């Protein structure tokens, strides 16, 4: 496939692997966090770790949109479908994220039988279409994701307003990448104690097409951490690792852009304007694993209040503690590896996820379980 196979080429990968081996100094270790679940997926799916020398370690970051969604937010979506009787539209991934009471959106749907209406959509536009086709029903779009999925949500809210729709609204759970990176860099483990070592970041691919590379410059300058923005193909990831090693060796900490075929310094101005028109910063938002982070998420502006499900329906966020044995929080902060969690692969599996990281194939736990667990110490089959 053109423009795809080139980025998965075995020979080029072999060449990059050799260059990485040569660049990595033997007397030290390198710890890089790939922020995005897309990178985590690519590393696991293509076995990139097998091509890296033993002293280059990848730490999975929190950039998996469904992983950082707290239980209370899924509960809100379920309550909308069950109590408010709306048609609740969701992307595929969030449907299986565990909620309170052993439920998930999928299980709530099964338990509701014919009366509950929870539907998977492929885009925000599909949700809007459902609202137009069902004028007698309230339709709510469960909008989640980082900056990549935010502009399409802004578009449908504007369209709904232009159409004068009275039966469409959005449960806005959009979150911001820079806030999550700042939270990791500010955490005592990284900043004070140094128990989690991060020598640099592989910066987001799709998110950066929207926000550009500029927002990361602060992290490079303030925290002295190199950032290389990289695409989601395996060769992108390997090239970024090579560039990060180069910066670390040279004692540099700047933002470099491996994904120049799609990302510019300023990003997509039009999308940014659209988002700014429809959304504003929330004062605080609860993230799974990272806790309450100030100014880390978006809410719908007052001018579009009619399309804000949190204003239209009597649902409010209630914090719910994670399962006590689940280590998703520590995994999302890079403090623990999936296989270090006591319930990984025993109680918590992709069929019965306890924590959110076991749900999406971008989640660190699901990626390791589905693609990489052959490398763990043998367990009883």
């Amino acid at each position, binding site marked *: *496939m053109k423009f*795809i196979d080139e980025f*998965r*080429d*075995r020979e080029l*990968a*072999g060449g990059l*692997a050799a260059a990485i081996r040569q660049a990595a100094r033997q007397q030290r270790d390198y710890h890089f966090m790939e922020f*995005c*679940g*897309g990178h985590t*997926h690519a590393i*696991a*799916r*293509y*076995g*990139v*770790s*097998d*091509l890296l020398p033993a002293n280059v370690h990848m730490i999975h970051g929190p950039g998996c*949109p*469904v992983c950082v969604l707290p239980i209370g937010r899924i509960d809100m979506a379920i309550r909308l479908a069950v109590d408010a009787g709306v048609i609740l539209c969701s*992307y*595929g*991934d969030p*449907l*299986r994220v565990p909620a309170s009471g052993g439920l998930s959106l999928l299980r709530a749907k099964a338990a509701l039988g014919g009366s509950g209406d929870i539907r*998977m*959509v*492929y885009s925000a536009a*599909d949700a809007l279409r459902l609202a137009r086709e069902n004028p007698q029903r309230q339709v709510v779009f469960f909008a*989640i*994701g*980082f900056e*990549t*999925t935010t502009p399409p949500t802004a578009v449908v809210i504007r369209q709904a307003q232009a159409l004068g729709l009275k039966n469409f609204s959005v449960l806005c759970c959009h979150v911001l990448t820079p806030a999550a990176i700042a939270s990791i860099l500010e955490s005592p483990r990284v900043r004070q104690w140094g128990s989690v070592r991060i020598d640099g970041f592989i910066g987001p691919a*799709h998110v950066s097409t929207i926000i550009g590379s500029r927002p990361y410059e602060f992290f490079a300058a303030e925290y002295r951490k190199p950032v290389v923005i990289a695409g*989601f193909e*395996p*060769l992108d990831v390997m090239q970024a690792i090579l560039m990060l090693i180069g910066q670390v060796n040279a004692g540099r900490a700047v933002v470099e852009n491996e994904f120049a075929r799609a990302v510019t310094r300023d990003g997509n101005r039009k999308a940014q304007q659209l988002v700014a028109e429809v959304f504003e910063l929330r004062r605080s938002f609860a993230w799974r694993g990272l806790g309450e982070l100030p100014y880390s998420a978006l809410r719908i502006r007052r001018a579009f209040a009619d399309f804000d499900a949190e204003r239209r329906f009597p649902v409010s966020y209630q914090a719910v503690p994670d399962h006590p044995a689940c280590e998703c929080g520590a995994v999302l902060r890079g403090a623990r590896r999936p296989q270090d969690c006591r319930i990984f692969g025993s109680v918590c*599996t*992709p*069929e019965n996820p306890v924590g959110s990281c076991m749900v*999406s*194939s*971008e989640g660190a736990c699901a990626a390791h*379980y*589905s*693609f*990489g*667990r*052959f490398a763990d110490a*043998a*367990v009883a*089959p």
Partner: protein
Amino acid sequence: MSPLRKAYARPLDLRQGRVEMAHGSGGRAMAQLIDELFASRLGSPFPGQGNDAAVLPAAVGRLVVSTDSHVVSPLFFPGGDIGCLSVNGTINDVAVMGATPLYLAASFILEEGFPLADLARIVDSMAQAATAAGVPVVTGDTKVVQQGKGDGVYITTTGVGVVADGDDWSGDRARPGDRIIVSGGIGEHGMAIMAQRESIGFATDIVSDTAPLHGLIAAMRASGADIHVLRDPTRGGVATTLNEIARQSRVGMMLQESALPLQPQVAAACEFLGLDPLYVANEGKLLAIVAGDDADRLLAAMHQHPLGQRAALIGSVHRDAQCFVQMSTCLGGRRIVDWLSSDQLPRIC
């Protein structure tokens, strides 16, 4: 003297008519539906039609029986429909046991209000598939459920075949050193269906691969290769089927990603939706696990058959107490090819 008056009956309206509850209630309407829509199309060569069961000559050898329910949406898709799918699917389940499929039984659950014209199209397609495969439908049943309680048509088919003594192909016979062959491009049926779903609606020329495999299997048997396991990788795709076999045989497997036959349009559609073609359904492909020394001979025989032209060696079997199916990736790394966990869901990013 006036001739005998023809029995008065208004023929089924195959253009505007719809399935009614009466078509399932055992009265005259049901008899008419069976006569005019099913029997006339599926026309069985056996006497005693109209009885509660088909009476068939005893077969020589061991009997193989398989049954499969077909619930597909949409009912009509590029490359086929639920009718031919229900015939081919069950023929394949019988044939991969090494058996010659002989007869089919078909049971229909119809939803009230379903257009008779569509039903006729489906039954025609079944008849055509059954005739082409040389496996007649010898008995059947119809039930009607209220509107909203079904999905148009569900078809359950049961197949009967005979297998000669000595042909013991079974999922528990994969051995270390065996090679793994797939008979052609993977993921075509699943992606043809997926592309038709209205909520996705992307234009593609992917066509379902639904086909009866017993001809190909006969050619494989004739090659004399020591086949250990045959299976058709339908739901859950190649990955899930290989995991089933690995668990049954208590072995591990190693696939080569670069060897997987994959049409470019299937690869592109999977890429677009974030799906893995290894988990996408096939309806006209088989996986063969064959003694290592016989792999080339079997592959050559398969290449001679129209349904095996793109057959490829995709991996091998080895000892592994954990029964992992693994894959050497196109990049040169290694990964697990795990069981499918629930449905594949499109990813967000």
